[in-house]
């Protein structure tokens, strides 16, 4: 497994941890205030960033121990193209998700709390989809 796929898996793990943590905190979202919901969401985003850094370091160290060599992380034009495709997919998914969320909020008259949570989750969904695309293209 090369360094780029390892980094991509790190992103998936960190996003998954953040989603699970937020899900455990937001099980009674309808009864929570907007302030407490946004606090949980911001904490969730912070956890995903910290988890990404932590797992990147751990996986890098474990990989170096197993392979007994330091792999260089060279970024070339193909990587930039793959990043561009992933970013484009991420933008499309987030845009579509946002439209669907707004439509659902309007038609079903849902609580605004669900809207805020859904928008944050759509960011994570877009991130996961772009990550899977990167794994597919790096193969």
């Amino acid at each position, binding site marked *: 497994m*090369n360094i*780029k796929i390892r980094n991509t898996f790190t992103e998936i793990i960190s996003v998954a941890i953040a989603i699970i943590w937020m899900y455990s905190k937001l099980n009674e979202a309808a009864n929570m205030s907007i302030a407490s919901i946004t606090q949980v969401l911001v904490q969730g985003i912070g956890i995903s960033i910290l988890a990404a850094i932590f797992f990147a370091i751990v996986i890098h160290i474990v990989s170096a121990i197993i392979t007994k060599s330091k792999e260089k992380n*060279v*970024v*070339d*034009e*193909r*990587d930039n193209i793959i990043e561009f495709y992933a970013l484009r997919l991420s933008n499309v998914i987030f845009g579509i998700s946002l439209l669907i969320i707004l439509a659902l909020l309007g038609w079903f008259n849902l609580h605004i709390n669900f809207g805020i949570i859904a928008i944050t989750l759509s960011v994570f969904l877009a991130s996961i989809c772009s990550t899977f695309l990167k794994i597919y293209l*790096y193969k």
Partner: protein
Amino acid sequence: MAKKKIHIENTVRRLRFNNNEMTQLELADLVGISRQTVVAIEKYKYTPSLELAFKIALAFNKEIQEVFFIN
């Protein structure tokens, strides 16, 4: 002009072996790309930019058309 996808092939793999069995990593270091990109180029899964194609050709002391060609 009708849109027709052209299939660009290359002789990178053969040239590597003709150059003292140069490894993919050695070629990658020489032209400043990752080994995975060399693998993708050799399998015709990725067509490099003109700049990178020239760099690869220069690494083998060949003309660009000797390395990359349309099949």
